[in-house]
């Protein structure tokens, strides 16, 4: 029964949280209010911290974590599958429509305008990632020079060497440990 409720709650979350990432958060708060035996607000705050530092989409991490807390391994898997099911269905439908109309002038025109809009939106999220990762949560804090040095070296390496992103992530972790970030 719990599994069924879990499935339904996460399906709803997946269906209505538009825009990804932390967009699932308000739904999880509501879920916590509705099922106080599942997790508390404090639990949720811990979950966000964990989900942000482990690899993978935050929404997926959150649903696995919540599901496994409530109903074990099976709960984690069920919650995650329920979360992604609505978007798989919606995107498969849109992908099919797009395929049909990919040569239409209207679709081409729309994407011609949307691509730069995405660049602008990405710029905004990159800024907020910078703020939390390089400036310790607030631009006013200033930047740790060791962080800045690593950042500069990596940017240079990334543009010059064109190696796989995993390499730079590994270097970041190593330097972080060696220099005690």
């Amino acid at each position, binding site marked *: 029964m719990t599994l069924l409720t879990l499935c339904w709650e996460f399906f709803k979350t997946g269906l209505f949280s538009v825009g990804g990432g932390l967009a699932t958060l308000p739904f999880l708060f509501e879920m916590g209010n509705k099922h106080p035996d599942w997790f508390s607000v404090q639990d949720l705050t811990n979950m966000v911290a964990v989900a942000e530092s482990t690899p*993978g989409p935050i929404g*997926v991490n959150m649903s696995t974590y919540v599901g496994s807390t409530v109903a074990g391994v099976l709960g984690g898997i069920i919650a995650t599958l329920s979360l992604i099911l609505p978007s798989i269905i919606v995107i498969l439908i849109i992908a099919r429509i797009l395929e049909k109309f990919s040569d239409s002038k209207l679709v081409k025109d729309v994407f011609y305008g949307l691509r730069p809009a995405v660049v602008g939106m990405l710029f905004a999220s990159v800024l907020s990632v910078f703020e939390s*990762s390089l400036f310790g949560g607030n631009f006013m804090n200033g930047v740790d020079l060791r962080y800045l040095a690593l950042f500069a070296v990596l940017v240079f390496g990334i543009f010059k060497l064109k190696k796989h992103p995993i390499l730079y992530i590994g270097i970041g972790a190593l330097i972080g440990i060696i220099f005690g970030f």
Partner: protein
Amino acid sequence: MKELAELFKSFFMIGAFTFGGGYAMLPMLEKEVVTKHKWATMEEISNYFAIGQCTPGIIAVNTATFVGYKQKKNIGGIIATLGVVTPSVIIILVLAGILDIIFEYQIVKSAFAGISVAVCALLVQALWKLAKSGVKDVYTAIVALMSAIVSVFLKLSPILIVVVTAIVTVCYKYIQSRVKGVNKQ
């Protein structure tokens, strides 16, 4: 069958090495999907992101479904999506009980601080590549600038930005074609 396995493998890697979620997947996506396998162009990734802003669900999942569908229809979409979520599910399930403790260790904190600096550096290049594929002329430069300004300062909802941009662009293209038509006459 081989391509399905490749899809799963690539998206598994993307899921395993995306720290921070959402747009943070772009550097991995660019390397695996655009450069290595040529499953999609940077323009198409950009299109998927725009659609992902207005459709339900996580951007990473939406993009995986799109790329998978493009290669192998419905089954491709499903396999790619399962690939991108599997690492998170495994990691969280294995670590669920001890996650709180792990992040207390200084060495883990240091490693993650270093990783997040690396993610910043990777995002600079991803943004650069996305800009090169999307900003082609004066109009698209203005759209990018406006979108950045309203996102940073007004914190407008991405859905609103996408919808308004789509409408304005269609009008702009219509007027442009009319003006060209008049000039020809």
